[in-house]
């Protein structure tokens, strides 16, 4: 950021005073622009964020006054079953959701990265699930997954699977059902990101590879994949972070059940904090969620940097 240009003809003394006056004026003007948004941002985002950090070291419920308890919330959390179950479910969800969405998004982007009349229609159709309301998506998929006579199980039986899974009614298959739904919903979004990445690859690279006699597969591995590295980095970060934050899809589709088989961290925060009014304890879980998200981002950023070097 360069500083304001000052007319060189102005004498130094005058110019420094004028400069200070100008700076004060700019500060005032700048703040009037920012203020309407900043007031709301400060009160309803920034302060709650800072409060969440502080609260995680306090004992505070809807019935008691806040009290500083140090790490007691964390000790309780690490000793609690539900925390570990929620953490495990969240991690399993991420392990399923991230690679599947990424692979399908890339595949779709490569199929749709050609100049054909009307290809925009296909792209738009595949993108649409991403902006469809989650409730509608969850409701439809719940019915598609219906254990008896649901279309998915009818299809599985038709291809020879005699005992198709019970999906959302089975504690083993509920999480896979949620993962399938979320992959379907999100892949259009990441396809758009990959399309942008593919279109930035210069055509000469492919032509040169072809002249050298590279097969389509070799071109994919040696031209497409390396050229897409920045896009892939971005996609992995976004996908991992969004996987750890998964919340509404779970609440609407399975509400954590059957049993606790699909309870995730966000939901645990909600249940403990808003449901049961344990403000301090739920904030400790929040802090863990935040630290996971932060670690993932920083770690992937570091890996990316090392690769570039």
């Amino acid at each position, binding site marked *: 950021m360069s500083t304001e240009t000052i007319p060189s003809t102005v004498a130094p003394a005058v110019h420094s005073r004028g400069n200070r006056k100008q700076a004060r004026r*700019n*500060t005032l*003007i*700048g703040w*009037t*622009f*920012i203020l309407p*948004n900043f007031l*709301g*941002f400060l009160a*309803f*985002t*920034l*302060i*709650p*964020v800072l409060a*969440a950090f502080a609260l995680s070291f306090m004992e505070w419920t809807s019935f008691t006054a806040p009290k500083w308890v140090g790490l007691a919330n964390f000790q309780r959390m690490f000793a609690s079953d539900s925390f570990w179950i929620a953490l495990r479910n969240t991690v399993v969800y991420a392990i399923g959701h991230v690679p599947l969405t990424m692979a399908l998004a890339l595949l*779709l982007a490569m*199929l*749709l990265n050609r100049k054909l009349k*009307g*290809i*925009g229609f296909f*792209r*738009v159709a*595949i*993108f*649409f*699930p991403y902006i*469809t*309301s*989650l*409730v*509608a*998506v969850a409701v*439809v998929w719940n*019915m*598609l997954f219906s254990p*008896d*006579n649901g279309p998915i199980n*009818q299809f599985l039986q038709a291809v020879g699977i005699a005992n198709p899974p019970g999906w959302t009614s089975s504690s083993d298959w509920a999480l896979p059902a949620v993962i399938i739904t979320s992959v*379907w919903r999100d892949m259009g979004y990441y396809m758009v*990101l990959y399309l*942008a990445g593919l*279109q*930035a690859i210069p055509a000469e690279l492919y032509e040169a590879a072809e002249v050298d006699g590279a097969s389509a597969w070799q071109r994919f591995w040696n031209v497409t994949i390396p050229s897409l590295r920045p896009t892939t980095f971005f996609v992995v970060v*976004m996908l991992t972070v969004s996987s750890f*934050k998964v919340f509404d899809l779970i*609440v*609407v589709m399975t509400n954590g059940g059957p049993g606790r088989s699909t309870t995730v961290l*966000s939901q645990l*925060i*909600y249940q403990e*904090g*808003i449901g049961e009014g344990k*403000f301090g304890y739920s*904030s400790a879980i929040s802090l863990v969620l*935040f630290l996971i*998200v*932060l670690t993932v981002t920083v770690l992937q950023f570091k890996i990316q940097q090392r690769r570039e070097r």
Partner: protein
Amino acid sequence: MTNMAEDLKALETRNAAHSAGDGQASGAEDRRRTERRRSPREQKKRTTDLVIYAALAVLVVALMVPFIWMVSSSLKENNQVLTVPIQWIPTEFVWSNYTDIWTRIPMMGYLQNSLYLAVIITCLQVLTGSLAAYGFSKVRFPGRDVLFLAYIGTIAVPWQAYMVPQYIMMQNLGLTNSFNALILLQAFGAFGVFLMRQYYMTIPDELCEAARIDGLSEYGIWARVILPLSKPALASLALLTFVNTWNDYMGPFIYLTSNRLWTVQLGLRSFVGQFDAEYAMIMTGSVISVIPILAIFLIGQRYFIQGIATSGMKG
């Protein structure tokens, strides 16, 4: 259809400069037209095109099955929804589902509530977001960049991590179970400021400098120079905010307890919970909740895809 073709061009040339983009796309169109006259090679290209179209059509239909099933089921009797084998086309179209739903649940009220929230939040977000973005990108003053870092920093914090303090705050303000809670929480998001600022940074400072020399105040520059130039970004932000608010489930779920305040999403979810065997009516409600989004998306798809691709984020 023409809309979609245009969108394709917009996406394809997004990396090029705005004005050059349009020219390039229509240039490609012209070239394709002249190619059509060369017949033998063209013939071969056409066959491969047809194969690709067929493959893509199969793929898209497969991916659209949930939507097809949703619409088809919404036009059936309840006992016709989960049949063996699947009926893709209802034997008898039960259009009455679409007239009955309005009396079965207060659907009109839900739609009005969703619309009210989405419009208010979108207007506030676009207005305050673009004002703040101007402050962050075109006015220089001490502390500005630190402040912007605070904005960016909170984008990295998952919303779920601070929903409890927000809730405590709203409870103390006595705003739970009111639209005001949602408006206050969602209208001043850092996301809008970030998206608009990214766009304003691409507008050359010389334009503002020239307007300053012409005697326009900073507010005048914002209103008469920057706003008209940033229509695409404003459209992106408005559409994304509207759709996010319309689709939001967790916000209304946490804050709105009385039925008369419920949004479409909450109303639909509660309908599913109460009458889980009314398969057809549930699908009818789902279709109705999606139609406004479909309409908005078809009108403004280019801004959606651009907004999402440039900011790489959803609200």
